[in-house]
């Protein structure tokens, strides 16, 4: 094929565009909000004592997930404090996650932190880690399989327990008929949350599936649900961004449904404060990363194992309007 001449921008056009863009930037300052308004929260930890350790953290996180970002921040904070070199990697596919654990074993790390969302995929590779005498700590999901697969400790939230807490809370704020918004179909943890909530809620609760990667679809699905059944007075979302969208749907339909959610982010705090979202069930992801690194450090430097062979729960912590103020600066920093 003959390349087309003259399809690119001409120099004069490019020049004009540059000048216009510069003028726009200089002339269009915002008087409110933005980076200038953001308070810089300085946080630093002194490097810790003990020999330099190398720890690998392998999760099943998809790219760009707020939750895992916070887990990673917790792990990094502990790593800085404990003089640990942290190697983070992630893949949502069970087989590929196992390969990442294998590369960590090949690198002869001093400890492995792993999530067990797909326990069967991780079985063989964790046996290899045990054989290579590398201590393994599991976090997040997989509390039931953790010990069986050779992990020393498990830090996480029992999704059923968390669901039960959410159901109770939903009942407490006066909801009688609720819908549980599931943003990822076939995710066992999310199903457990809804099932747990249903158990303690008392009233009827239905699941609603939405496509989590497409916010307009999330909104229109929730709106459709509220339009179908005007008796719905409670909405439970399983991730913070979806709670904000549920609030939009409630406003749009004129429904009086109250919204509660799992997980936390910085926009959520403002919604908790102004009462548009009633409560958040936080599983404190920061703790999962932080404690896992600390545990490996303690094991190496003092031979400690926490938990007494049982999973250590990092949640659920219920956050309402009352404690939103205390947590706000931490959420702003992206660690809550």
């Amino acid at each position, binding site marked *: *094929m003959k*390349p*087309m001449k003259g*399809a*690119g*921008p001409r120099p004069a056009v490019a020049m004009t*565009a540059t000048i216009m*863009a510069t003028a*726009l*930037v200089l002339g*269009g*300052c*915002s*008087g*409110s*909000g*933005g*980076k*200038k*308004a*953001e308070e810089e929260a300085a946080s630093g930890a002194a490097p810790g004592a003990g020999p330099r350790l190398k720890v690998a953290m392998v999760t099943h996180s*998809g*790219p*760009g*997930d*707020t939750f895992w*970002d916070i887990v990673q921040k917790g792990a990094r904070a502990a790593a800085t404090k404990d003089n640990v070199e942290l190697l983070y990697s992630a893949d949502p596919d069970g087989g590929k996650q196992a390969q990442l654990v294998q590369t960590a074993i090949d690198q002869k790390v001093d400890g492995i932190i792993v999530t067990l969302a797909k326990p069967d995929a991780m079985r063989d590779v964790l046996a290899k880690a045990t054989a290579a005498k590398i201590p393994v700590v599991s976090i997040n999901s997989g509390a039931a399989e953790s010990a069986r697969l050779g992990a020393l400790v498990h830090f996480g939230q029992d999704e059923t327990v968390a669901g039960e807490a959410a159901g109770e809370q939903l009942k407490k704020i006066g909801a009688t008929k609720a819908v549980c918004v*599931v943003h990822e*179909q076939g995710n066992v943890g999310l199903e457990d949350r809804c099932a747990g909530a249903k158990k303690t809620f008392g009233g009827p609760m*239905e*699941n*609603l*599936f939405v496509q989590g*990667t*497409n*916010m*307009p*679809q999330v*909104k*229109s*699905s929730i*709106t*459709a*649900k509220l*339009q*179908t*059944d005007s008796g719905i007075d409670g909405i439970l979302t399983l991730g913070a*961004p979806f709670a*904000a*969208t549920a609030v*939009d749907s409630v406003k*749009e*339909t004129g429904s009086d449904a109250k919204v509660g959610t799992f997980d936390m*982010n*910085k*926009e959520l705090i403002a919604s908790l404060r102004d009462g548009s979202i009633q409560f958040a069930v936080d599983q404190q992801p920061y703790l999962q990363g932080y404690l896992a690194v600390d545990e490996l450090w303690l094991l190496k430097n003092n031979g400690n194992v926490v938990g007494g062979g049982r999973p250590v729960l990092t949640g659920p912590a219920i956050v309402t309007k009352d404690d939103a103020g205390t947590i706000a600066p931490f959420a702003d920093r*992206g660690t809550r």
Partner: protein
Amino acid sequence: MSQAVLKSAAAADERLARRSPLRRLAGRPEFGALLGAAVLFAFFSVVADAFLRASSFSTVLYAASTFGIMAVSVALLMIGGEFDLSAGVMVTTGALVAALVSYQLTLNVWVGVVISLVVTLGLGLLNGLLYVRTGLPSFIVTLGTFLMLAGANLGVTKLVTGNVASDSIRDMDGFDAARAVFAADLDVGGVRVNVTVLWWLLFVAVATWILLRTRTGNWIFACGGAPGSARAVGVPVARVKVGLFMGVAFTAWFSGMHLLFAYSSVQSGEGVGNEFYYIICAVIGGCLLTGGYGSAIGAAIGAFIFGMTSKGIVYAEWNPDWFKFFLGAMLLLATVVNLVVRRRAEPSR
């Protein structure tokens, strides 16, 4: 019209044969989809009580418009014989650029909107030029840009904000005005209709006009149907294709602006997978995967079918575990109706 007249006309020149208006309608690419939409509409009206309310219809239209705006430009590109797999994440890129630029530099959000337009159009130009200069299939070229954009969305957002979502720009100058343009709720006879529905109809009208009433439209059909012959008769194939890629980029920018101003902050991982829904809308609406055939109105009907099905299942209160199964079955139903109609209409074309 008598049979004898028809016969003699056909004998003179079959291409000049006169066809009844109904046959002519049945020969249009979007007719099958229209019938499929009507079947689904009737179906959901019967099985879902809440479906026929005006407010529900506006929800369906909103869902359809968010797919439909992208499906219009994607359909034009497909008629021109190409795919754009980066369309889904480019929406997120557009929204992130506007959000990050406005927030980090504390600028009026309109500045972010304009810079985002320049950046997204640049990405469309890049897609087009890469395709034209390398001669690789657009499937491969845009697969590359798709993955790069998905990575850059996350990487840049993390680098700039320290988090994986953009900061909320709700309280910044110009937000309300921009929201009024890209995401306003309008009151139409007591029913709230999102402004995206109007934009969608406008884009469909413009695209239809380009396709059917301008020389560029003829060029698009020619590029997709027979690129070699098109080039031989002097159609600027490369320029048309670059333009089509930039058309997709333009609607991606628009959709990104809607995403940003409707939800005020953007998750950097959003948008992956949507490119297939855009293509699906275009195909349900009668576009051929091989190019050279299709229509913008068809893509709009395809998006309407998609929006109607995805929300109709909710209105019908079917078991949510089976949601995707029902969605797939309904889409198959619509497409089969489309296919049957087209087969019947084919001899008349």
